């Protein structure tokens, strides 16, 4: 393929080389008051860091998170079925590895990051207790297998090359229902009710479902709000403004309490499904507004050029305006997805136990009552780190996409 011809190389001006001493003098010690500020801040930073590190090292509560890692990750998912979340995760890791080999770039960064984290966690997991009746692989072995799937998938995809493109896209589309099927069971597998689900698994399912489902819905709402048909436009405006006028908690409560009243047979709707619906409906309204902002930023000439070329309304939207609008709002959308990911912790209120809920529960376990100061600091630091890894990954992805778009503009 000759498609990579004449892309511009780095546009950064060559950085001027200055010595470290020179830099320090110019930026930190240029005047007497800068000297004072530098010294004081340095003292504060060193104090904070050293006391934090020494606390980390001596804190007695770390075992709480690690001995309960099963609860944090899967909550009350049956111990004898734990191989199923593992299989689901292995599937995703394999697809991620293959995608990394095929598409490179940011996907490879994510896959590599995941592999490194897997290996690191693998070593940590040596210390994890085996669970009685566990049919799954031990944690450390599974983490190493994840790393192997990531790296192996990457290598394999590089060997096979572009033939893999469509199968892989289709596999990704099927991955979501496949994961749900593996976790929930049904066809041949014993059913694991969603009320047993929880922990990080639940958080991820809520977030991914919310993102995957609210995206098309939000785009449709945004297009509908610009529609020339008054009925559609009014409906979209009403919907968007109504949802944006209330907090997520309210929508969650409405999903949990009102939905069963309105829908025939609503009580039988799974609590998790209700939460997913609520998160999706909520997120879609914000997404619609963001996408609309992007659509408005597209100059009229773009549509005119497309129409003059004979593209119809649908083609113009799908090929010209929407792609440009979405590119324009990538940072905002990813920011919104990060917020959604963290906001899923609100489902604790309607009785679901996500990562945060599991942590709260662990902190209250009687066995930690004797620990001086309790274990909540250590436990919440662990889950904060988990939230951070995912949020940071998303924000990196956003940055990379932005850079790529910027590069095509100059």
């Amino acid at each position, binding site marked *: 393929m*000759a*498609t*990579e*011809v*004449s*892309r*511009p190389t780095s546009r950064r001006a060559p950085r001027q080389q200055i010595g470290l001493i020179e830099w320090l003098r110019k930026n930190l010690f240029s005047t007497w008051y800068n000297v004072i500020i530098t010294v004081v801040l340095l003292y504060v930073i060193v104090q904070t860091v050293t006391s934090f590190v020494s606390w980390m090292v001596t804190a007695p509560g770390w075992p709480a998170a690690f001995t309960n890692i099963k609860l944090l990750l899967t909550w009350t998912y049956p111990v004898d079925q734990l191989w199923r979340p593992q299989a689901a995760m292995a599937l995703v890791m394999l697809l991620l590895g293959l995608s990394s080999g095929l598409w490179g770039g940011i996907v490879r960064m994510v896959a590599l990051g995941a592999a490194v984290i897997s290996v690191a966690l693998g070593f940590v997991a040596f210390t994890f207790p085996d669970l009685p009746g566990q049919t799954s692989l031990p944690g450390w072995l599974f983490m190493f297998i994840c790393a192997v799937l990531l790296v192996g998938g990457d290598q394999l995809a590089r060997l096979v090359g572009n033939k893999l493109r469509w199968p892989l896209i289709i596999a990704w589309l099927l991955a979501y229902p496949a994961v749900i099927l593996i976790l929930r069971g049904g066809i041949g597998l014993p059913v694991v009710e969603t009320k047993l689900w929880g922990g990080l698994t639940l958080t991820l399912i809520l977030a991914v479902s919310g993102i995957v489902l609210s995206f098309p819905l939000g785009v449709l709402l945004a297009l509908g709000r610009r529609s020339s048909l008054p009925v559609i436009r009014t409906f979209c405006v009403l919907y968007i403004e109504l949802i944006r006028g209330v907090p997520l908690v309210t929508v969650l409560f409405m999903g949990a309490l009102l939905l069963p009243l309105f829908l025939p047979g609503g009580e039988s709707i799974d609590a998790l499904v209700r939460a997913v619906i609520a998160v999706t409906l909520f997120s879609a309204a914000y997404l619609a507004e963001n996408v609309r902002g992007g659509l408005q930023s597209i*100059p009229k*000439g*773009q549509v*005119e*050029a*497309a*129409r*003059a*070329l*004979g*593209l*119809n309304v649908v*083609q113009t939207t799908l*090929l*010209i305006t929407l*792609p*440009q609008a979405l*590119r324009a709002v990538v940072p905002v959308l990813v920011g919104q997805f990060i917020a959604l990911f963290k906001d899923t912790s609100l489902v604790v209120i309607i009785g679901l136990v996500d990562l945060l809920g599991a942590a709260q529960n662990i902190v209250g376990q009687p066995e930690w009552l004797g620990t001086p100061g309790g274990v909540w600091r250590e436990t919440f630091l662990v889950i904060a780190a988990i939230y951070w890894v995912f949020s940071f990954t998303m924000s990196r992805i956003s940055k990379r996409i932005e850079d790529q*778009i910027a590069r*095509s*503009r*100059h």
Partner: protein
Amino acid sequence: MSGNGSSEPIIICENVNKWYGNFHALKDVSLRVKRGEVVVICGPSGSGKSTFIRTINRLEEHQEGRIIVDGIEMTNDIRNIDAIRREVGMVFQQFNLFPHLTVLQNITLAPIWVRKKTRKEAEAKAFELLERVGIREQAYKYPGQLSGGQQQRVAIARALAMEPRIMLFDEPTSALDPEMVKEVLDVMKTLARSGMTMLCVTHEMGFAREVADRIVFMDQGQIVEEGTPDQFFTNPRNERTKLFLSQIL
């Protein structure tokens, strides 16, 4: 001159009227363009030149009068509009290239989606056109990485890729730096000499003199005067034309 082929007009505009709200933008505009003819439209800013040529491919809707392009009458029927748009290519003052697509993708998009060509056919044609407008080596760049003159040549190639019978140009060189005007005009001249039917809104009088078969002068929504370049430049009849020419020549 290049006024060859069948003498049946390819564009017929009869008493076209258009209003923006209460503002009467086009007043009884009538024009017939023969196959292969090159017509230059000029006139002061706000005189309705853009509005007029944009009615020909229905970027603007006219309210009264008839427009017939290559035997197809412009009605509200979307099939007629689409049929006409397939016959008519357009080049804009602001280029209006699609910034998220490469030059090659810009050119092949409509042939693939509208003409249902295969990617291979469309790309072969695109390279041929890029060769013709002299920027084959830029095929894989994005519009934002090209100069204004190059962008406008891509825009011309993009319109030509649909194999139109008529090309509309709306001040194609007005947004260009002076040193780039020539490269675009050269492409347009070659196109004019190849027998393409062209309707150009432009103030490039050198271009008009060299390749136009006819010059149409518009003012306040009306066609005030039309004639061959010779008549138009040496012997304008209308006072407003004289005033206009004295200002731009």
